[in-house]
């Protein structure tokens, strides 16, 4: 029996590997976007793909996001499986009309005759010192659009598994890549990646009894850190990584909240009209009699994304999370 050394890999490397494996497995998979070919993408996620599969399979497109997604729709109509890269979160906005008026609706419009298996990769979120338009958390827009799946990995292994599952999906998937985790490392064996699970299952990253932190993407490591710090306060926090915002895993989330009786939703996106409101409502509707306190939200402020020198005040950090945990009506227990 041969053993393969499990080496640390970055999330970006796992994503590259997922694209490469998907392209090797299925000639219908085409990668397209700005700078994805010769350069390998501004985050190098498509590094080497044009060389390995040719520029017709990994294509530098003109600089026009609506055109990129719009032509991807036509390619999917003809049986291809396009994987589109939107260079940055805020650069995806020109493609919104194609996404909302066509990508999300084509299957429904045609009674299932014309599904569009398109994966739209969107680097998102802050924390990398990006100037304006490079750090948005745009997931609420996507979540509010019926017909799209919305997923986001927080670990190296999930980056691989979720991207493979997204490309394999016959529905369009908005694949949100937490860009500040691109260079996060984890022991991961690319030769034996975990079996690809279907989209839609959350996972408990850390078990605990006191309260549940419900989070996803870039906020998962922050919540893990907060959970460690909370031990000093005597709190044993559970951390649920949603992985998929649409579909939403009510089952895993509610099972956790019923166990702990308290919940805080944590994300970078603003709180007003953000994902946390929907999650808090779902948890309250389903777990009301198990709750010891209202479900709280820890989020970015409802301001345009700040300039890089101020972003640390905006992003939810360990202190803001612990402050919220402290407001979960613990007095009632004493």
């Amino acid at each position, binding site marked *: 029996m041969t053993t393969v050394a499990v080496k640390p890999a970055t999330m970006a490397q796992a994503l590259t590997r997922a694209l490469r494996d998907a392209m090797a497995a299925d000639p219908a998979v*085409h990668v397209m976007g700005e700078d994805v070919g*010769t350069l390998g993408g501004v985050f190098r996620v498509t590094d080497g793909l044009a060389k390995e599969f*040719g*520029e*017709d399979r990994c*294509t530098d*497109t*003109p600089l*026009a996001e*609506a*055109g990129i*997604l*719009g*032509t*991807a*729709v*036509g*390619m*999917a*109509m*003809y*049986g*291809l499986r396009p994987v589109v890269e939107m260079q940055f979160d805020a650069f995806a906005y*020109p493609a919104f*009309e*194609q996404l909302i*008026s*066509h990508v999300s*609706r*084509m*299957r*429904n*419009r*045609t*009674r*299932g*005759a*014309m*599904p569009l298996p398109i994966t739209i990769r969107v680097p998102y979120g802050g924390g990398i010192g990006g100037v304006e338009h490079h750090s948005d958390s745009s997931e609420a827009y996507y979540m509010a659009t*019926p*017909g799209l*799946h919305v997923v986001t990995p927080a670990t190296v292994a999930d980056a691989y598994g979720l991207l493979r599952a997204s490309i394999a*999906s*016959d*529905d369009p998937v908005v694949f949100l890549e937490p860009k500040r985790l691109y260079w996060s490392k984890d022991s991961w064996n690319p030769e034996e990646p975990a079996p690809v699970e279907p989209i*839609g299952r959350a996972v408990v990253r850390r078990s605990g009894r006191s309260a549940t932190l419900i989070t996803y993407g870039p906020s998962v490591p922050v919540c893990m850190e907060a959970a460690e710090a909370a031990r000093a306060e005597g709190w044993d926090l559970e951390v649920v990584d949603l992985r998929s915002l*649409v*579909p*939403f*895993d*009510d*089952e895993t989330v509610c099972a956790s909240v019923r166990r702990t009786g308290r919940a805080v939703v944590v994300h970078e996106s603003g709180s007003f009209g953000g994902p946390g409101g929907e999650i808090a409502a779902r948890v309250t509707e389903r777990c009301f009699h198990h709750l010891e306190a209202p479900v709280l939200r820890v989020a970015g402020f409802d301001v345009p994304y700040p300039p890089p020198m101020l972003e640390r005040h905006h992003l939810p950090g360990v202190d803001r999370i612990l402050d919220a945990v402290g407001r979960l009506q613990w007095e009632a227990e004493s």
Partner: protein
Amino acid sequence: MTVMEQRGAYQPTPPPAWQPRTDPAPLLPDAEPYRVLGTEAAAKADPELLRTLYAQLVRGRRYNAQATALTKQGRLAVYPSTTGQEACEVAAAMVLQERDWLFPSYRDTLAVVARGVEPAQALTLLRGDWHTGYDPYEHRVAPLSTPLATQLPHAVGLAHAARLKGDDVVALAMVGDGGTSEGDFHEALNFAAVWQAPVVFLVQNNGFAISVPLAKQTAAPSLAHKAVGYGMPGRLVDGNDAAAVHEVLSDAVRHARAGGGPTLVEAITYRVDAHTNADDATRYRGDAEVEAWREHDPIVLLERELTARGLLDEAGIEAARQDAETMAAALREQMNQDPVLDPMDLFAHVYAEPTPQLREQREQLRAELEAEAEPEEGTHR
């Protein structure tokens, strides 16, 4: 040779050197719209083709009249007519091979019908019982696109994909003069030219975007001139001259099929009816203008040519009229039947498998429907 190889490898250029990437001269449209009927070119036109075009135009006119009538009877929610534009609509469908694809806008149901889709299925969107009433793969007709020009990049992507697969497929995409102001028009033409995709863009310049005339839409010398900026040929044609439209579109399709890349065709026509049955055209244009265009009507032009050359007589005109009446009667009968609706269809095709959230909502609707069907005694509704 791959598409990218054909485009050529990146070549560094020394600083002062510059040369145009494409010679603009052959891309420029002619100064006058191309015409066949009433010109010397008509003698070369195939009589059989002209007779077929005539029958199709008469059917198309009758279809427009019948669909408009159906809005008055409440059988269609709305109908954007192509009365006066039938030459463009039928020619667009006729120039394509079975394996080719048509990308219509919401106004182009006549082209969809001419391509072979059942009229009642083509009109589902406008009746309101479902969005797309036909399987796009059956006749290779994309769904009618309501957001303007957004279907153009789809046509480019499909044609590009077919070419990558080595398939001999051309896509013909239809848009109006108003649609040329949309960003997607620009992006589609740019992608098509960069990829040398086998696409034909047909712009029907019918004079108005609802109420806004072309002069407020563009300052371009013509819409066909826009092609030059993208590096593709632009062609100007009299959109009411069915023989000319057929010839220009056929040439563009042949050019695309041979690997020559995309063409932009501007067909100059006129929207004789209001934007839809819900519009009042008297608010923005006068009768004299409409009457002038009725003199330049596609059926009038073709009928004059055919009768002058002895290719059509009273019996032929009557036969075409009868054929159109038969089509209209069948359409009336189909549209007078109430569509079968199933509210559960709302959830059936949002995803391949409904999400848990949609399954819950589906059960909610099911319960509401059951309660509607059997109201319980003593409950307040």
